[in-house]
């Protein structure tokens, strides 16, 4: 949630500071804001997903330590969402 807010503010701040921008510059800034918003929402989704998976992983680990590898793997799996979202930043 926090990441989302920071990303959003960072993207919007330059827009507010420069009242008179050239149209091309304005479009670029809006695109950056959109990308930041995308990353923020993706991070939020990953966080929600990891919450549940992490709880289940810790439960499984408490019963049997042999699950450690699987537990880590499944817990970080939703993080791929954020990585994909970051790729979008470089594309635009």
């Amino acid at each position, binding site marked *: 949630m926090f990441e989302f807010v920071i990303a959003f503010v960072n993207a919007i701040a330059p827009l507010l500071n420069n009242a008179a921008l050239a149209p091309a510059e304005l479009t670029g800034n809006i695109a950056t804001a959109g990308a930041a918003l995308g990353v923020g929402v993706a991070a939020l989704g990953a966080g929600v997903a990891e919450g*549940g*998976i992490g*709880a*289940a*992983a*810790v*439960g*499984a680990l*408490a*019963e*049997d330590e042999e699950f450690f590898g699987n537990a880590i793997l499944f817990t970080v799996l939703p993080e791929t969402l954020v990585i994909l979202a970051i790729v979008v930043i470089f594309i635009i």
Partner: protein
Amino acid sequence: MNVISRDASNYAYVNARVKSRRAVLFDEDDYRTLMRMGTSEIARFLEESEYEAEVNDLGSRFSGVDLVEYALNRNLAKHFDDLLQWSQGTLRDLLVRYFRKFDAWNVKTALRGVYADTDPAEIEQDFIRAGELDDDTLSVLAEADEVRTVVDALSETLFGDALDDAYGEYEETNSLVPLENAVDLAFYDRLLKQVQGTSAGTREFVKFLQADIDFRNVRNAVRLARSGANLDPAEYYIEGGRLFEPSELDALADNWNELVARLRDSHYGNELADELDELDEAGSLIAFEHALDAALLSYSKHLSHVFPLSVCPVLGYVLAKEREVDNVRAIARGREVGLTEEEIEEELVIL
């Protein structure tokens, strides 16, 4: 507490632990091994399994089938206490309510023990300490010298009023049936009244309970029909199921085929096809009851798969664990009195 709390439940955590514990329950091969053993060998087998701590703890005081039985009860209570410790929010509330069935079990144990003039120590050892009644109350129940004392000791609990009402009938008939029935009715009545009207989180719990009640109604009706006693089935009917009306159940109890056909047409039909075939073939009352147990267990398993992040997997595990304890107890008792493997196998519900 009459309101189901609305804070977050930790379904993911509890269900992961429950699934792991469910995986180590005895399977068919374990039961086959146990069936070939004597009672002391069974105790040794348990010592190398899940039940190690309990068998070691009790090993110096008991032996043979007593050791097995006490270790089983203690292990059951330990697991269910664990469930309560891990769970939070709505999940915990629902479990606390459901585990009052062990209070019902303990009250019935006390009533039967006191009625039969059993030694208080023996009654205490038969208690399953997984419910809400504390140790002091349970001691008072076990040491009571007459049934009235048990009823009075429970006056402040949820069973109080029901037992008080039924006591007159007990005095008239000198039979425990009215009191035991009052305990069951009080438990289910309270459970459903508190849960009804609450929101989505408890829907699956209600579904599970309705199945439990439906199957219990079927069992009671069939038992009454078979017992030949002139008792009114309507008195034993538990409200809250989805399937039967009291009058209808009365008519069906005499006719197993129709009863099974009715179950097959219901919403249980799809998931329980195999179990219902077994019910159809069941020749004796015991076989019929075991087939019903298997059907309920199978339905709870189905609910656990359909609603993985709900209270259902936990309740499914509770049933499965109880079934395991019953099975091992039946094997140990059976071996002690010299039943054959086939006879013991008939007593088991394996899923």
